[in-house]
């Protein structure tokens, strides 16, 4: 409900720009988006650049220890980081991803698929960046139903009416 650009509705609103598509970085926007929606906040998520892949029907998200010295995995009671020289080897990314997914499952943490489904069910508005779609030659048909295409101005309109705007 808007009048002269002023929102007369009392509902709190939030937007999140999702720019990253790795398994670890997929979590913050979906956790906050779904939680906000559960707390009656109207949520808009704008997916751009590598974040756009998070809308693909089939997700195959990965995490890499390469260039990420903060990524220390719990192992035999210790926390073990991985030297970049090892992280660059073939197979290490899929190994680290398998370990992370295993931890996620064992600790009762939701999968990204599960959180995304929750976002859809709670009417989170999801906008796929048209420019990124063209740039990376991705197809809307490969993405989940219920999303819309839009650009910077689409996000701006939402952001101007929002109480919280996050960039992730």
């Amino acid at each position, binding site marked *: 409900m808007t009048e002269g650009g002023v929102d007369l509705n009392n509902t709190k609103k939030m937007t999140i720009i999702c720019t990253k598509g790795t398994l670890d970085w997929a979590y913050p926007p979906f956790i906050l988006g779904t939680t906000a929606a559960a707390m*009656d906040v109207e949520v808009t998520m704008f997916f751009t650049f590598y974040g756009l892949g998070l809308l693909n029907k089939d997700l195959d998200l990965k995490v890499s220890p390469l260039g990420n010295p903060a990524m220390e995995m719990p192992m035999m009671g210790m926390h073990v980081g991985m030297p970049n020289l090892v992280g660059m080897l073939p197979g290490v990314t899929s190994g680290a991803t398998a370990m992370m997914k295993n931890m996620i499952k064992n600790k009762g943490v939701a999968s990204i698929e599960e959180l995304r489904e929750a976002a859809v069910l709670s009417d989170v508005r999801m906008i796929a960046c048209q420019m990124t779609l063209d740039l990376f030659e991705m197809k809307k048909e490969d993405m989940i139903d219920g999303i819309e295409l839009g650009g910077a101005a689409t996000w701006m309109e939402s952001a101007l009416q929002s109480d919280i705007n996050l960039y992730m």
Partner: protein
Amino acid sequence: MADATLDAKGLNCPLPILKAKKALKELANGQTLEILATDPGSVKDFEAFTRTTGNKLVETGEDGGVYRFVIERVA
């Protein structure tokens, strides 16, 4: 005795909140939902959730690592 029970044991943030919201939606105003959780973070989270959404946290407790919340649907 609550009108419904949600077993959120073993689930981590934000799943207990998401599932609680879903379960609350299925109740009528004035009815209560009992939630069992093992996530220690859920204690503060359910307080914040109820304060923000206007639902009423009528009971909290802990027994052997299981946290119990009873929320009355208000909004």
